[in-house]
């Protein structure tokens, strides 16, 4: 089926119809032609098909993989890896007299990119542990590539930079993860990730938005198994508490945790401070401190349409 393609924009020797040089050529890759839409002239033929391999080999027990193409190219991240790798030989001719295989050149693919590929693999592993979507992984890879090429953070462990890039990517996508959550999937300490985070922001000359309490509500509440009503109430409470400046100087995570505690205690699904602390990564004394600050004005903090299982005056007072 004929289809328009953007290949013309990138084509190096631009083929154009001799009669209509401004016309954008239409690619027909059933026949491998490029056709002028104005007059129907076939301008270029035998175009290379850049679509994906459509033959699938699911049940092949054959040793060789008859797929004619390799991995999808990773152009943005790899510097256009067009090298050729020599595979392990089959047959007797590929072994020399001692039994060693000739043409042993399999190892050196691209030493400068090797560290970057390792880092991408690590990023992918980390992101997979907390089920991050593809867009965050791509953004993380891009950030890592930028940092790596700049070489300003060359002395730092690549894993630390990768973890910090993951943190920044989550922030930039509007779904921040706490440092402790990133720590949980990385082998690097929170301190080191924090240091690398600040260094990367300086190196790339970007900044990130400040975290708010609402960013974490849906994740914490669903991890605790709280119903939507409670989550909405907790979001409202936390936002109101910050607006009324009842919790100056408290980390938004702690305020969120305290709000969840208050909302869950007022509903049928009561959660203990310890449970919330485990999920949010804050100590239960921290939740207690923030809760003490918001407790005096609890009545105003709840949303107006909230259905109380436990009335406001019966909320636990710690």
């Amino acid at each position: 089926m004929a289809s328009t393609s953007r290949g013309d924009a990138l084509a190096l020797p631009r083929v154009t119809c001799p009669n209509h040089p401004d016309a954008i050529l239409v690619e027909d890759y059933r026949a491998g032609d490029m056709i002028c839409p104005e007059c129907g002239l076939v301008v270029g033929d035998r175009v290379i098909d850049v679509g994906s391999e459509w033959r699938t080999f699911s049940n092949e027990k054959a040793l060789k993989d008859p797929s004619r193409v390799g991995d999808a190219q990773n152009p943005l991240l790899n510097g256009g890896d067009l090298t050729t790798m020599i595979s392990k030989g089959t047959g007797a001719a590929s072994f020399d007299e001692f039994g060693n295989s000739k043409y042993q050149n399999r190892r050196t693919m691209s030493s400068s990119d090797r560290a970057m590929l390792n880092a991408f693999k690590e990023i992918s592993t980390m992101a997979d542990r907390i089920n991050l979507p593809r867009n965050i992984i791509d953004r993380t890879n891009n950030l890592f590539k930028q940092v790596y090429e700049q070489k300003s953070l060359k002395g730092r462990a690549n894993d630390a930079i990768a973890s910090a890039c993951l943190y920044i990517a989550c922030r930039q996508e509007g779904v921040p993860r706490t440092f402790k959550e990133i720590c949980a999937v990385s082998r690097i300490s929170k301190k080191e990730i924090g240091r690398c985070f600040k260094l990367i922001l300086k190196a790339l000359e970007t900044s990130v938005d400040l975290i708010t309490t609402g960013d974490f509500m849906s994740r914490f509440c669903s991890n605790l198994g709280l119903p939507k009503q409670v989550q909405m109430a907790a979001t409202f409470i936390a936002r109101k508490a910050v607006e009324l400046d009842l919790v100056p100087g408290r980390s938004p995570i702690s305020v969120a945790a305290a709000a969840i505690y208050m909302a869950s205690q007022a509903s049928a699904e009561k959660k203990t401070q310890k449970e919330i602390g485990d999920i949010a990564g804050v100590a239960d004394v921290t939740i207690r401190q923030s809760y003490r600050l918001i407790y005096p004005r609890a009545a105003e903090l709840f949303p107006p349409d909230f259905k109380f299982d436990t009335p406001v005056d019966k909320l636990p007072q710690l």
Partner: protein
Amino acid sequence: MDESALERYFDDSIADDSSFILGEGLGIQSHAHPTQGSTPSLSMKAGSGTEPGDDLDLSFLPDDLSSQVEPGRHNMADSQTAALNVSQDSGIFTDFNSQDSTAADSQQGAPPSVPVPSPFCPMTPMTPMTPMTPVTERSGIIPQLQNIVSTVNLGCPLDLKFIALQARNAEYNPKRFAAVIMRIREPRTTALIFSSGKMVCTGAKSEEQSRLAARKYARVVQKLGFPARFLDFKIQNMVASCDVCFPIRLEGLVLTHQQFSSYEPELFPGLIYRMVKPRIVLLIFVSGKVVLTVVC
């Protein structure tokens, strides 16, 4: 003139018989006799230099400023925001120089904590560099110096074991750290003395006190028999703190001054403001306390 006057003061306070000449590194070789007037003024200066150490407190300003705060609170908040608006583009701060509040100070009689140009050697930066700003923006808040770190080269290799055994108030644990840690009570400071002859002096509350303390340490080393000199005295780091007396909304500050501020509540509860001119790092807290630090 000033160097030998200090020497004289030193001799008076430590009662040393020998008369070494320290201060060759500063290029002042004068042996001129100081006038009688300068010595008492020097001792007074050195004596008064210790007073701020007693008065200094993190949490409250001198009494007369608290009376200014009540009627002037609004003004301070306005001037603060006005100052912030002014500095938005270039990060220049308003002048908190003590010379502005000499009226306040003279009531108390306490010497300004930010000292006036020192009579000592001008080769080392003794005067704090502060830009001048119009009178309307001054808020009367004076940061109090809390710590000064300085280094000096004694100019000769030292035997740390000998020093640790002979000197009082010296500790030396070569397995832990390769320097002698010596402390003196007046000014209350700690010095790290290395075997190369270089020394780090920390804990002083003003530049002059730091220099005085360094000289005292050099004198101690000298009395132990080493040909100590006093080369390249340089202040490396100064830390001061102050209180603006009103709560600060850090989220608002980081929104307006994004390129200078770094506020990560998960990492540190304070906002880190890196001012460009003058190059000062401020730690700003919600309570209104501000810590300023500068690398000289």
